């Protein structure tokens, strides 16, 4: 069980470790992640290692900092990875380097794409990371977005591969509703909600479309009677929802390695996305059937959706094997890359 720390800190909370992979060496890595940044936290939760949850708004007090150093000593941590960055992470990283010196190596893994730079915050953080790197705070800085060196040359050239959740055997053979899809995306321009909903509405055989956000005003153009607003889901509720539908639709305009897709795959549910540009998976059959090449084209998405649902009905074993093979490849690559990044 996790232990709660002071001042909004958390450590190894249930949801950050229960679906984590394990590894004899990587288990001793400490990941520092922001408690309220759900996507990054989900990605980190799947990785082996210890998880320190930090706030992204309130600054740290002395007691909290001492507690963190206590944990580092207790677990004999030698490698610390900051998963994404904030002013608080920056303060913490600099303080850690000063106190821990060469005994402990610090790293950053970012989960951002240049498409998100309209939020200037992201660029400011990258600049903070780069400064800290030049000051010797970080040994390496890396990204889950391929070719991030084209944005910040100091980045490690390899791509970090996200782990998918390590799902227990009890999830095997869950029942799914063959005529339901789940659209777990925000209603923002980048997330492309309207196109996804239109695609689902126009796909033959889809009776139930579960959505976490309402495509406001779309009813003026489309029949939304099959839409059910289910709201954001977390933890087991999210996993069981992902595992209970025929397919997941998340064809968004720009992503790194979206966790919803990996969570769906872990449960054996196919999930459609846009092209993610991961060379490691480019030739995989699952990539071919799940990555839709044109993003603002409901008809094309619908076509992909129909195809994957039909495959799931006509040859469930083939699809299951394809997903299992993909998951194995991903787990192996994720482990290799982290070991490489951390010189372990």
């Amino acid at each position, binding site marked *: 069980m996790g232990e709660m720390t002071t001042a909004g800190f958390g450590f190894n*909370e*249930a*949801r950050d470790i229960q679906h984590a992979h394990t590894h004899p060496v990587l288990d001793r890595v400490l990941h520092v992640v922001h408690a309220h940044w759900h996507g990054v936290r989900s990605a980190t939760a799947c990785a082996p290692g210890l998880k320190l949850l930090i706030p992204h708004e309130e600054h740290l007090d002395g007691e909290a900092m001492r507690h963190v150093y206590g944990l580092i000593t207790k677990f004999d941590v030698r490698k610390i990875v900051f998963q994404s960055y904030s002013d608080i992470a920056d303060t913490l990283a600099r303080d850690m380097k000063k106190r821990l010196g060469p005994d402990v190596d610090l790293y950053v893994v970012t989960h951002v794409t240049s498409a998100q730079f309209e939020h200037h915050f992201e660029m400011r953080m990258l600049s903070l990371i780069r400064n800290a790197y030049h000051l010797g705070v970080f040994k390496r800085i890396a990204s889950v977005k391929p070719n991030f060196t084209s944005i910040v040359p100091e980045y490690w050239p390899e791509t970090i591969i996200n782990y998918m959740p390590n799902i227990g055997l*009890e*999830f095997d*053979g*869950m*029942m*799914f*509703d*063959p005529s*339901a899809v789940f659209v777990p995306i*925000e*209603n923002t321009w980048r997330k492309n909600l309207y196109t996804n909903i239109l695609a689902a509405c126009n796909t033959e055989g889809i009776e139930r479309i579960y959505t976490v*956000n*309402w495509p*406001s*005003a779309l*009813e*003026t153009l489309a029949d*939304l009677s099959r*839409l*059910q*607003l289910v709201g954001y889901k*977390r*933890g*087991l*509720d999210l996993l*069981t*929802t992902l*595992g*209970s*539908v025929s397919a997941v639709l998340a064809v968004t305009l720009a992503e790194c390695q979206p966790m919803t897709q990996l969570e769906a795959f872990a449960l054996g549910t196919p999930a459609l996305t846009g092209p993610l540009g991961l060379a490691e998976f480019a030739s995989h059959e699952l990539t071919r059937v799940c990555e839709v090449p044109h993003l603002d084209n409901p008809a094309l998405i619908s076509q992909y959706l129909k195809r994957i649902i039909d495959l799931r009905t006509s040859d469930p074993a083939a699809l299951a094997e394809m997903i299992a093979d993909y998951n194995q490849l991903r787990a192996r690559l994720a482990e290799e890359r982290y070991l490489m990044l951390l010189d372990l």
Partner: protein
Amino acid sequence: VTTATPKSICFVTNELFPIQAGGIGRLMYNFAVHNANLGSGVRIWLLLPSTFPADALPQVEAIYAELAVVHRALPLVGRSEQLAQLVARLPQESWAFDRAYRASLEYYLALLDAEQHNGGPFDFIEFPDYGGWAGASVAAKRAGLAFHKTIIAARLHSTLGLIAHHERFYHHPSSWLGYVCDLERNLLERADLVVGHVPGIAARNAEFYRFGPEWRGRVHIEFPLLTRDELDDQDIRLNPSADGDPSFIFSSRLQPFKRPDLFINAAIGFLEATPEYTGAFRLVSYGWDQDYIRYLKDLIPPTWTNQIIIIDKVAAEERQRFLRQSIVVVPSDYESLCLFAFEASILGQKVILNRRCEAFGSFERWIDGDNCLFFDGSAEDLARVMRAALSWTPRSIVDTRADPPYWTLRRRRDEHPAPQPLPKTSLVCYGFGSVAELNRTALMLRLLRLSDIEVHIFLANAIFGGDTSAARFLEANGWNAHFLAGYGHQPEQFGRRLARLDQEILVLLPYGFQLHPQFLAHARQAMAQSPNLALCSSHVRVIDPEARRAHGLRLYAGDLPSTAMLENLVTPPVAAIRRSVLIENPFDDRARSYWFEAWTRQLALRGHEIVIMPSAEIDALHSDDGIANSHRLTGTIIDDVGIAAGLPARLIAAEPKGVDNAASRVQRHDIANSQLRSAIQIWPASREIRNFALVFYRGDLDGLLVHPIGGTPVIAQIAGPSGAIRRVDAAVINAHDGNRGIEFALAVASRAVTREGLEALARGATLPGWALSPWTRLEPQHRGSVALVCMEESSTANSLLLLSRVPKNGTESCCHAVFKDLRLMMAPLGL
């Protein structure tokens, strides 16, 4: 038949001589002294509550060093058990069920500790009959969780239930009083042994609580040892006032059932008849209720205030001095023994007692005219007897020979029944609204690893019908699939289907709850051990769905009848049920969403045995404000009670108290700042109206800016929660000083947000399914609020609309209209 000599007994008490002055603390001391005098070899434990003053412990331990082991309970907040932790976190000022239950839980856990220190089970645990302190311990024994080899004894002092009955027209009715009365009755009914001092008091309890011959068979009467330590220290010679007329004294607590009013009224009658009498009538005591003491003082006419005197702050020696020189009057309507009257008689004093009190009038140790004088319970007669006492001399002192205490007697060794095989059991899961919910339950079932339990899953045709995959899925897991008509909202049909399952025990598990692994074993064991048990369950942890930690607790009461009459607290919706009970007591469709609560409450009121284990082995996955109730449900159940009692009056005429918890009326739903970020401009339809965005999130103000423009309102939309929205409140700010005022409004659309609906809103009109609040005007830099009362509802697609407009004679420039802190009140589901 083998017999055995007991080795240990634990008394549960919150009073202990010499720290507290009351009679019960004295009794505890006397028990220990008696036990030591007899050389019984029985080890006495005294269990004190955590609130017992810590600084008094060294003194207590010194006094009892040779007599007893003193054990003070750990406070719940300092304990590691999950249930203790969760109870400790409940609000302290609560008057809900936990208020009555907490003390019993603390004593139960402390008894387990004391058992450990004792090196084995106690032969006896003795609870007092008042306070409801045995609730958790009795439940634990009934469920087979603890105290298998221990005899739980209840000593008849005075229950609050009986006192409240005697203190007529005095107690403010409350559900709390109901809990305590129920818990007290529960102990008397379930105790293995009932110890009384006076036969008439045991009979009074049997009559009052309607206990039959079987109960009377469990009653043991014994007269306790009266020690005279305190008296021995004093000059015990009678010391009547040297000159003048004798005085009278009332020295019981100033509390209605002790009847100080009778004493005062008799004194008034006495003095009015003989104004020349110079003796005093003193009430030398204390009380808690200042209002009642004021009432007593107001009874005394000014003429007699020099002779009828209430002395409520007095040192012990002073009280003794008054006592010695006075004729003692004990006018109580009810006492279980009254040490005070015995002590007065031992000292050779004249004692006047109320004949109507069973502890006096029906107790052979008190002999009228011989060792006491009786009056008939009225003030007039008391005045008459007071006068008679002046010329009367006691011929003897009252008999105070003690009986050997029950714990020192050899007793037949109780045969502990051999462990029964666990009954055939089915786990019944139902209430699924989607495949995801079914999967979620499937995960839990797999982790429970049910080997010898049948699993029956009931699915609604309207949701799962017409698709064979669900049945195949359940079959593949070895579970039985059943289909219910429609949405499955027909409890009578459900009940009949359950009654046909060929298993003795059915564990109902609706979606939204999960079981801890030990729940099934514990519940089955309880049902196996007690064939009369109709239902068994535990308390419920409320789990935060995100953090997956327990953040709340719902306590249940079991077969407490007053509680069942008023509240949905009998069992949680998850419970083990004996199938035979279900066959005889069908569910009722007319109770609608409260069918289970209506059923369990009626079972409890009909006298079926229902136990809630003192543990939290059930989790509620979705938190809400608590346990809902309804006036219609409760009103009908109360009415049933009256009809069953044969009353001509209909209790449905009384609006029930105790159902007005928040959960029964409304659920609150807040729309937090981050959700406001998802708002969009929906009117005007075009976003290209100005060269700036009309709707966006103002991070500096944590609110949504909806910038009005000339000629039309601007409307922003956010998705609302599912269900029946009854009211929406929003804080609004005119955040700029450069405008001439802004108007704000809220609207709800419970249907699709259409162009026609928006056009109507823009004109200030609403289509069916839409609701619009009045407009609120704010001057520059002012804050205010907008409220919308709304009777429309929708199960899936509520939209909240935030509107702003430029007032007449206003201008649109700098109209920074900001909405924040949206609070929605949702109507409860059900009746």
